[in-house]
């Protein structure tokens, strides 16, 4: 396994916004990490990168890369080299006072030990592969001179520059135009197939998940709700939350953003309810759900949906 995460949790001061997360990912695979805003997707990403220190958080549980369990120092050595991160907002992801080509090249110089000239050549090569027209001119631009989609390609090039084996992409398309979104998702999918990378694709867009992911982990309020092969999840969701998310995929004739079936919002850390955290919003909840956390497994639910026959 390229990445395997067991019982992963996050503590920030006195609160524990994330707990009991586990999933595994192999080369050439795309794992979707889905859930509404505030369900703990970004914290999971930071924890896997060993970056919780930046927000004053502490990691619980284990993260193993290529079969080797890593402590924070180990993850620090892998960052940028074996594990790369793509963040949500390309508008703020680049240093505004540095030319974008240099921001890509520095990764190659740092991790591959290439000469500045070779790093520059590699930068232009990567940019061309990501279908950036006039790569040399773009490389000499500053971030504010580029469009959002172009900036996200730069961020992706930055992630690829150290020849990583695993990419964690935290909502890489949320901040972009719909047309650009599709291109970026396509680019990421191609990278995985062509280079045999592992990709953790964080999104709250079930449509994207259906399109490119192999497996899906559904998060709700800092816990795993369901982990399934993508086909199984869409044909037979077992957790009511997964079912509701699937029902939310915008189809023609639906108002965008309307969440049929899930009124309410994800509670914040301080307001996590006892028992199953989804029970206040769940149509199937009963007294048991309000008091007892559901058993862990492929789906964490006391009253899972039935598997349809045929």
């Amino acid at each position: 396994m390229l990445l395997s995460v067991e019982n992963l949790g996050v503590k920030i001061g006195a609160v524990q916004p994330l707990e009991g997360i586990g999933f595994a990912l192999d080369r050439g695979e795309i794992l979707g990490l889905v859930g509404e805003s505030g369900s703990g997707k970004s914290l999971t990403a930071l924890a896997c990168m060993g970056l919780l220190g930046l927000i004053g958080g502490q990691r619980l549980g284990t993260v193993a890369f290529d079969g080797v369990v890593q402590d924070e120092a180990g993850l620090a050595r892998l960052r940028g080299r074996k594990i790369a991160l793509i963040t949500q907002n390309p508008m703020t992801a680049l240093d505004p006072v540095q030319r974008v080509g240099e921001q890509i090249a520095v990764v190659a110089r740092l991790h591959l030990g290439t000469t500045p000239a070779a790093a520059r050549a590699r930068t232009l090569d990567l940019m061309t592969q990501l279908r950036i027209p006039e790569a040399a001119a773009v490389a000499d631009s500053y971030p504010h001179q580029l469009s959002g989609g172009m900036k996200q390609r730069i961020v992706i090039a930055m992630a690829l520059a150290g020849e990583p084996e695993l990419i964690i992409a935290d909502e890489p398309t949320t901040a972009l135009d719909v047309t650009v979104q599709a291109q970026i998702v396509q680019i990421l999918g191609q990278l995985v197939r062509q280079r045999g990378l592992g990709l953790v694709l964080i999104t709250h867009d079930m449509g994207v998940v259906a399109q490119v992911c192999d497996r899906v982990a559904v998060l709700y309020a800092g816990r795993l709700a369901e982990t399934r092969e993508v086909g199984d999840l869409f044909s037979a969701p077992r957790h009511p939350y997964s079912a509701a998310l699937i029902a939310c995929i915008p189809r023609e004739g639906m108002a965008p953003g309307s969440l049929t079936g899930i009124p309410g919002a994800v509670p914040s850390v301080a307001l996590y309810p006892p028992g199953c955290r989804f029970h206040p919003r769940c149509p199937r909840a009963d007294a048991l759900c309000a008091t007892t956390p559901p058993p862990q497994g492929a789906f964490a639910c006391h009253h899972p949906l039935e598997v349809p026959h045929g």
Partner: protein
Amino acid sequence: MLDYLVRRVLLLLPVFLAVSVVIFLILHLIPGDPIDNLLKVGSGPEARAKIAAKYGLDQPLPVQYGIWLWGVLQGDLGTSIITRRPVAVMIGQVIGPSLALGGMALAISSLGGIVLGAVAASFRDRWPDQLIMGGVLLGSTLPSFWLGLLLILGFSVELGWFPVSGARGWASLVLPVATIAFGGIALVTRVTRVAMIEAASRDFVLLLHAKGLPPRRIRLAHVLRHALMPVVTILALRIGWVLGGAVTVEYVFARPGLGSLLIKSLSQHDYPVVQACLLMLAIAVMLGTLLGDITQALMDPRVRSALR
């Protein structure tokens, strides 16, 4: 960029003219007549008219302004009404000590403040930060006259290391510079620390860490560089202030300086001298903002693009 420089400097001309009008007008519209200081007790209206004519004070205001400005542009700042010496000479005598004091203090404040602010931000909420911020609190609350007197007592009277007063030689600069720089370092430290903490929380810094750059390099090459932008703005604004605002320190150390000259000539209603002092300060402020703007443009490509 060169284009911008030329335009930015040309833009200073109308500003300079406006400032000169204001300086000229303020002094002629505030109450108090300098002729009163010159007249012997009991002299008649003829004597008054004669003196007014001698200094051009009987002309209409616009004419007076024109004469004054024409002189200023040729380096003739007029003649002091009280001392009857050329104002340019009086300014020339104080501008050197003022520049030395202000320049040294500003340089030390910048350097010390940026280093201390960066250290404090790196050790946020741990003992080095608390120690530095304790010093900052002291530096921003201690009145400079009191600090000056303390330094004189300690280093001049007790230890005899530096002269008590005067403006002769480098040794006489040490204590006044220290007095001003203490407050300056406190200000710059505070601004640098806050700016660094703010910059460190930006999104792109997270990604720099994700790229695997060494934390020290991120702090110095990226976070500090961004934090310096607000610091540069503050420092540029301080250039004018440091030149004229050192009055108390000049007084405590009995140093000649622009600030002291301004205060003294104000109390004597010595128009030409006051005007010249104010003009010097205005020029210092204008050059300060010019320097600040140019530095900003050099540091930030977004500023440069906005200029096109």
